[in-house]
């Protein structure tokens, strides 16, 4: 909603056209029937400048973007010189920014602008913002770091997470809503988030339980980046259907609505050509199978059609779907006909040994017969959804294996 229209009814509070005054004034002056407005609209027409907050740190209305002065970045370095000098002085340099490991020395080829949470647009100057071409170079540099493996993954992820957020902040502060370069930047950042999500999940499972909060933050930024990207696609009419398919795949899982909006509503807005694209038809089919509960076709379709990135997005749901499948087999099976695990493994696209382990995760018993064949009895009453960190059982799929052997991290 346009807060400045409300000004006709109420005296302006606080300072002039700065960000904070609008949100705070409308919230403090609401009479009982002025409906509250949530300004987290991922699907409005403007790119979501959620990272532009007032000093009071209230999330802003998307429309405020129109009120932004026309800022054009003129900083030709990855990090504005002033910021670099200040951070050198304060010894606030990430490990990747240190020259020869020196915690108080960086350089123009190493320092990258940090994301700034509390910034009011009144204080932003052109010299603080990087133009698109510089942002592209910055992203290239960051993605080199991403592939470097010089540090534990969480450290790398943290750094790239923050610095890419700053790139997006620079883009939206300049109101950049067109251009192939901007699209390319957002697309690569989406890929970063997806690949990171995959790696964070693996690490979480295998070792450090403290990594979990990163999931949610990473997922949050992934959806925000996607939302900005879709807005660009709207403006430029050059949609890349694979990136739309990610959105659908993120909404699998029964009541999972990371953006709070029903898929039916989202579909209404998409061009029909996007809806009929190969990647979207793939995602829609998975959606259909997931809603039906057809675990076999779900897994089968992933095996035969998923791209590497799509698989990364799907990974968490594969576990849910397998659990559901196991539950159906257990529930509907015949007590006198226990399942050979090898048959279950075909249904669930798992190695037989993994099936045994997975049954245990789901509270189900298995046994070995005299000739060494393993079985799962049906009609067990102890089934439960797997709890705690999800164990990762690879999908038995030659095709997917080649996909991620070949190019797991090309962004």
């Amino acid at each position, binding site marked *: 909603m*346009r807060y400045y229209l409300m000004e006709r009814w109420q005296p302006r509070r606080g300072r002039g056209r700065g960000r904070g005054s609008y949100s705070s004034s409308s919230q403090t002056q609401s009479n009982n*029937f002025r409906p509250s407005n949530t300004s987290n*609209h991922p699907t*409005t027409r403007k790119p979501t400048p959620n990272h532009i907050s007032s000093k009071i740190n209230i999330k802003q209305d998307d429309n405020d973007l129109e009120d932004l002065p026309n800022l054009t970045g003129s900083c030709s370095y990855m990090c504005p010189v002033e910021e670099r000098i200040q951070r050198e002085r304060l010894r606030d340099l990430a490990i990747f920014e240190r020259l020869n490991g020196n915690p108080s020395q960086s350089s123009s080829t190493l320092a990258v602008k940090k994301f700034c949470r509390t910034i009011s647009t009144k204080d932003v100057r052109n010299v603080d913002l990087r133009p698109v071409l510089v942002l592209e170079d910055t992203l290239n540099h960051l993605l080199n770091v991403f592939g470097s493996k010089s540090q534990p993954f969480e450290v790398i992820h943290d750094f790239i997470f923050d610095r890419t957020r700053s790139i997006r902040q620079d883009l939206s502060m300049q109101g950049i809503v067109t251009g192939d370069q901007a699209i390319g930047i957002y697309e690569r950042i989406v890929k970063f988030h997806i690949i990171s999500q995959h790696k964070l999940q693996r690490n979480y499972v295998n070792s450090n339980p403290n990594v979990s909060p990163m999931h949610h933050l990473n997922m949050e930024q992934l959806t925000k980046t996607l939302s900005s990207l879709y807005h660009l696609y709207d403006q430029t009419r050059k949609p890349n259907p694979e990136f739309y398919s990610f959105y659908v795949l993120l909404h699998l899982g029964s009541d999972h609505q990371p953006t709070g909006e029903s898929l*039916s*509503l989202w*579909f209404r807005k998409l061009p029909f050509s996007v809806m009929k694209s190969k990647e979207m038809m793939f995602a829609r089919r998975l959606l259909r199978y997931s809603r039906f509960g*057809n675990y076999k076709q779900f897994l089968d379709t992933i095996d035969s059609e998923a791209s590497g990135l799509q698989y990364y997005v799907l990974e968490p749901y594969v576990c849910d779907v397998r659990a559901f499948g196991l539950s159906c087999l257990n*529930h509907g099976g015949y007590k006198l*006909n226990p399942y050979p695990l090898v048959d279950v493994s075909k249904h669930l696209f798992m190695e037989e040994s993994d099936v045994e382990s997975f049954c245990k995760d789901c509270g189900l018993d298995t046994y070995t017969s005299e000739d060494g064949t393993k079985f799962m009895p049906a009609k067990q009453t102890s089934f439960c959804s797997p709890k705690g960190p999800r164990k990762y059982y690879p999908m038995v799929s030659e095709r997917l294996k080649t996909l991620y052997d070949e190019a797991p991290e090309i962004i």
Partner: protein
Amino acid sequence: MASYMSMGEAHRRITDYLNRFVDVISYQDGTSLKPLLSLSSESPSFLALADALNLFQDANRLIKQADKYSQYAEIVAPLFRAMQSYRVGHLVESYQAFEKSANAFIQEFRNWESAWALEALYVVVYEIRILAEKADRELASNGKTPEKLKAAGSFLMKVFGVLAGKGPKRVGALYVTCQLFKVYFKLGTVHLCRSVIRSIETARIFDFEEFPVRDKVTYMYYTGRLEVLNENFPAADHKLSYALKHCDPQSEANIRMILKYLVPVKLSIGILPKKALLEKYTLVEYSDIVLAMKRGDLRLLRHALEEHEDRFLRSGVYLVLEKLELQVYQRLVKKIYIIQKQKDPSKAHQIKLEMIVKALKWLEMEMDLDEVECIMSILIYKNLVKGYFAHKSKVAVLSKQDPFPKLNGKPINS
């Protein structure tokens, strides 16, 4: 533009309007005020007035001439500008001027104690929305970002605030709410409906039964549609059925609109409409779907979904209809059961998975035994089929009692 009108005639038309305006307000004649505020109706008198204004060009002078006119200058002057712009097809300008006028009108409206001008307010509210839509079309056709409808939404929120008080004006709040729904649905910012709904449904000053029937029907229609989008079928059924029940039976277009959403909801809870109903209201897009459900014909369902895919996606019911597949499978298995029962009642409850594979093949759908086993397990899990399946012998064994439980108006548990 009418060049046949003389200056004298133009002058007369404008002063006639001004006099009428003033009189109508002093007599608190709400019904007569309505046509004075409507542009989009394009009535002959409006068109003539607009022509007069464009010819005369200096209506402001006339307004200032007399105190009885100038007291309403803030309403009438921009209103005249809006009319002039509208007449020459400058719709963005027309909207902007009309909004100014409407703002001033609301200020006055607040001061009038009784609700005599409520119907006139409705006209203003309606015009705001319609003019905003036209303005946005103009912006879009000029390659600019449409933004007037969004502004109209904000304006309507203000009007809502004005009506939300203890006095008799409050019965107008539902009309404004419905206009807001239309704005939000058109913009796709449907989540904004939530806060208005909360105000209507939880505020103590509002008693839903007090509102006019027409507004209640519209309200239930839109809130019903929201429930469909969120797949809350019992709630959607309740609201859309209410709308249907209280809708003017003569208004076939409205009934059709309600049914468009009610039919998928009813289908989801296992209630099929009669063919005659679909024909009467030309809801042909659902005919094949209903047929597929009766026959257990999966291929027909998929075909019907594809044929009307764009339409179903636009109305937001595609996913709902897709999910009917479960019931179609149930029907298919039931048919096999019935056929077997006729052949040999004692063995009917045992269905070889092979039979189902064959039946699907006959429908041109290739599925292997594993897939059929998977589907049977799902149908059993979701209580669409009662029984179990023997993995080794590849046979589904149905319960002897009520093997195909009816949904009975409840959605399938997932």
